[in-house]
């Protein structure tokens, strides 16, 4: 069974850069996945990305793409495969501002012979990266389409998933202007280490606890 990691990359505090984590939120709120799939809000992992790669046969990343780069409209979705990402070589090094992240992490993982065989980057053209925890309208509309791109990739890989009967309708915590203190709710659940992927306030199962290093 292929191990698949789906990761949203980006800062939720910098406008459209938060689209990666927002797509992860939408995926977790609406779908259940097989055990071989790990869904992660990676934030801006820098070189830590290498640690998440070494577990995966297939890595699907969702990230914002600079608007100025190819003259595309905000919300445009472009798919990049491994060779597209590495086309410009081992950036010397910062080709992306999550750097050292994507290209460097792939190259380091390659070198350690620990790199996913397949990599897909779902890139969403962003519009503004100002200090703000909201997406611009064009990018907001791309969230559902990005979810479909990820699901399409899972279809291609022959991995099943199912739509939740009772989807979680709450917005991501960083988008709520005023909400009851989230940390208080976290405590009320007192979940210890078991954090349920289906609950927005307990996102991302205790990934490392379940995947020991050999």
């Amino acid at each position, binding site marked *: 069974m292929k191990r698949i990691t789906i990761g949203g990359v980006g*800062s939720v505090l910098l406008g459209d850069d938060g689209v990666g984590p927002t797509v992860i939120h939408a995926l977790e709120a609406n779908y259940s996945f097989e055990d071989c799939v790990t869904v992660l809000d990676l934030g801006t992992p*820098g070189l830590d990305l290498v640690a998440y790669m070494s577990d995966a046969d297939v890595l699907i990343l969702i990230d914002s793409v600079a608007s100025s780069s190819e003259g595309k409209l905000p919300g445009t979705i472009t798919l990049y495969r491994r060779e597209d990402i590495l086309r410009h070589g081992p950036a*010397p090094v910062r080709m992306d*501002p999550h750097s050292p992240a994507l290209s460097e992490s792939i190259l380091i993982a390659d070198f350690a012979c620990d790199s996913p065989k397949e990599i897909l980057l779902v890139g969403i053209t962003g519009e503004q990266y100002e200090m703000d925890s909201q997406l611009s309208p064009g990018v907001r509309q791309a969230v559902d389409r990005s979810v479909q791109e990820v699901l399409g990739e899972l279809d291609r890989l022959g991995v099943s998933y199912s739509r939740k009967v009772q989807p979680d309708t709450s917005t991501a915590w960083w988008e709520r202007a005023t909400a009851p203190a989230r940390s208080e709710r976290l405590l009320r659940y007192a979940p210890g280490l078991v954090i349920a992927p289906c609950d927005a306030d307990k996102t991302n199962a205790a990934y490392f606890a379940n995947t*020991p290093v050999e």
Partner: protein
Amino acid sequence: MAKRITIDPITRIEGHLRIDVEVDNNAVSNAWASCTMWRGIEKILRGRDPRDAWLFTQRFCGVCTTVHAMASVRSVEDALKLEVPLNAQYIRNLILIAHALHDHIVHFYQLSALDWVDVLQIPKADPAAASKLAESLSPWPRNSRNELKAAQDRVIAIASSSQLGIFANGYWGHPAMRLSPEVNLLAFSHYLQALEYQRKALQIVGILGSKTPHIQNLTVGGVANAIDLDSPSALGMDRLEMIRTLLEEVVQFVQQVYLVDVCAVAAMYPEWFKIGSGVRNYLAVPDLPLDSRGSAFDLPGGYIRNGELAGVRAFQTPSDAVFRQSVTEDVTHAYYQGDKPLQPWVGETDPAFTGWNGDQKYSWVKAPRFNGEPMQVGPLAQVLIGYAQGHELTRKYTDLAISKVAAIGGVRVTPDMLHSTLGRHAARAIRAGMLAELAQKHWQLLVDNIAKGDYTVHNQPVLPTHEVEGVGTHEAPRGTLSHWVVIKDEKIKNYQAVVPSTWNASPRDRSGAHGPYEASLLHTPLARPEEPLEVLRTVHSFDPCMACACHAFDPSGRQIARVKIL
């Protein structure tokens, strides 16, 4: 006539940093450090619930997430005068140590070793001789001829394919590279092994924090880890044992590999004990609390002025009045409005971008000052401050490192020589050795406390309506971090973070005093000014992390590092 060299961005760091140096007779005669990204993240916190601030602050950066979460909950606890149960202190301490070990290992191997190690020399090495050398330095079991040969084969395969991958842009063959092929091979095989051990350290953070990056288990007043020895879903003996096993492996790597490698590199580049000192004022805060009030600590804090170890002053607690009253931020040379240094509780973050002008404003980093003076922060500050106070554990590992350098290279090192580029690397490894030992201590403290029947992990916070202020500190991998919060009507009224890299990367202040990066570069000799490897060595020795803000993946591959010579 001085030449000006711009390196923008500095590579192999987190985030964007630009360095400008003037070079006269092949030595640096003037320097400017500027961060090219704006961070005004504090603005997003105003009006929010202070109990949630940590969730937002740990998104400042992808690399230092844990540290910003920790400093934030501590700032609110300080404002509310809220104690933290023992279990919560120990769990937090274990997370902090595991994160720091991960960070120090990655910094040395993945982010800076290639300033000293010439990958293209590796094919010439004799793996058997390298293995023999390694066995004379350390009992580490993974220095066998076969393991080293396998690492060498990977380099040969890549070198002969003309695709150098991650190593395509080094200053290979630079005259300042001087390790023997065998030492290059040894260091490089540890580069590969480091990837495994940093990940094990990260796993500990994940097990206790539920997730990494961005731990989920903090709460103002404690942690949200339920302790139940019998439940598989809570923190019980299974998970504690898992942590103990991982810790053992990481501790062994730090003490038998990382610390030894740093000493070996130091022994072979002894002239770098004389280069790169710069600002000799040092600042560190006490950390790893041992009681619920936060009055006793395993890591000492304080400050040193002008490199005078004998004059060290100690902070008893992180909320020491001297610390609280002495920190200001100056924006004379930073792209912000304002004309006088402000204490962080009344700090402002209103941008005023002008473009780079070395005589006026040239950086997005503010200039933090302690009693009006620039301070160097980081492992070197902590080690010197601990050493000067006679802190036992600091002395143990510092003396160990010094004797190791002497044994390998016949180089006599005195604590005074630590004011240098190599001193910063050595101090980071010394600190990692200390932290490795402390990790096992705090694991035992946690287990013993649970065994007593104490399962408490949290004290309930009560938010007052009147105005209160607090400061939360953490001695992070890159140095002293402080979060300053003002709370009114149960909401955040003001919030400022003074992060380690703003102390070190600070621009000049109103008096013209250089920040630590800038000062450390002055007088550095450059063998080839068009390939300023020596500048990178010193800047990397600080472990720069400017990733407090970021933009997006740029598929066009612009933003390539450029070295511009004017």
